[in-house]
C-alpha cells in the first residue's frame, strides 16, 4: 500500500524533543505515525505543549499490555486539523502501577477516552474528575484488556461461558413475587 498517510508530525516531534530533552525518551517512526516516547511524568506536559502547537484534536487514548516485559503502554493519538499533521505520544509504566496524569484539563474528549482506558486496561489517570467504569457495569471485576484477565463464568447468575448454557432447555423462568 503506498503510504499516502504521511508521517507529518516530524517537526513537532523534533520541537518537543528540543524543549523537553530527556523527558522525551525516543522519537519512533511506524508505518503511519511519528511516535513520541515520553517518560510517564512528562505525559501531561508534553500534551500541553503539543496542544499549543496546534494539535487540537485528541483522537484517542489507549493502553497496550505487555505482560512478559511487565510494562503497560499508554498511547495517545493527536491530530492538527489546520496543519493536517498528526502525532502519537507513548509512555511506558509498570503493569501494576500503570498511572499517568489525566488530560481532561486540556481536552474535554479525554474524559471518556480515559474512562474507557481505565475500564478496560486498568490504567489510573490521576486528576481525572470522574474516573469510573464506562462500558462495563460498575461492579464488574478485573480489566478485560489485560492479558491475564479471566472472564467470570457467571455474572449475577447470568452464564457468561457458552459451555455452561444448557442447550436442551430454556432456563426456567423465575417466579415473580
Amino acid at each position, binding site marked *: 500500500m503506498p503510504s499516502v498517510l504521511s508521517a507529518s508530525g516530524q517537526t513537532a516531534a523534533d520541537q518537543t524533543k528540543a524543549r523537553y530533552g530527556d523527558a522525551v525518551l525516543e522519537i519512533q517512526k511506524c508505518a503511519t505515525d511519528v511516535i513520541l516516547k515520553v517518560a510517564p511524568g512528562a505525559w501531561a506536559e508534553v500534551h500541553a505543549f503539543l496542544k499549543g502547537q496546534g494539535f487540537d484534536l485528541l483522537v484517542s487514548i489507549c493502553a497496550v499490555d505487555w505482560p512478559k516485559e511487565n510494562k503497560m503502554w499508554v498511547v495517545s493519538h493527536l491530530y492538527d486539523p489546520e496543519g493536517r499533521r498528526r502525532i502519537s505520544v507513548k509512555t511506558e509504566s509498570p503493569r501494576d502501577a500503570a498511572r499517568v496524569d489525566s488530560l481532561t484539563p486540556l481536552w474535554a474528549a479525554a474524559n471518556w477516552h480515559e474512562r474507557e482506558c481505565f475500564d478496560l486496561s486498568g490504567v489510573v489517570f490521576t486528576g481525572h474528575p470522574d474516573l469510573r467504569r464506562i462500558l462495563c457495569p460498575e461492579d464488574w471485576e478485573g480489566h478485560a484488556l489485560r492479558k491475564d484477565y479471566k472472564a467470570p463464568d457467571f455474572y449475577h447468575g447470568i452464564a457468561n461461558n*457458552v459451555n455452561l*448454557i*444448557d*442447550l*436442551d*432447555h*430454556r432456563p426456567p423462568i423465575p417466579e415473580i413475587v
Partner: protein
Amino acid sequence: MTAVRTYFSDVFMGLWTALVGMSITLRYLFSKPVTEMYPDVKPRTPTRYRGIHVFEEEKCIGCYVCAKACPVDCIEIGVVRKGKEIKITKFDIDYQKCMFCDLCCEPCPAHCIHMGPEFEKASFTRKGTILQFATPKTLTEEEKKVEKVARK
C-alpha cells in the same frame, strides 16, 4: 417591521411547505407499493447469497481447515480415517454462533462447503439451531476408537 414580516412569512411557509409535502405523499398514494410479500413470494437471492451452508459430504476430506478458519468455532467435525478411506461421522454447524462470514468456504481444498441460498432455519430450542450436515452412520467399535471429533 421585520418581526411582523417573519410572523406572516412563518404562517405562510408553514402552510405552504405542508402542502408541498402533502403533494409528494399524495403522489405516492397512487404509485405502486414496493412491498415484497414475504411468505408467498420468496425473495430471489443473488448467486453469492450467504445463507445456510451447503455441504457436499462425498468431497470432504476431513481436514478441519474450515473449522480452523472459523472465527467463532461453530463447526465441529468428526472423521474416521482408515488408510485412504475417509468417513465423515459428524459435520455440525452451530447457527447460534455462525455469523455467515464466508471465511470457512474460501480455504477448503476440496471445495465441499459453500454458502447456500437457504435462510429459514429458525428453531424453538437452542439445540435445534445446530444443524447436522453429515449423514448419520453407525460405527463399529473399531471405528469408534479411531474417530476424531474436533472443533478447531
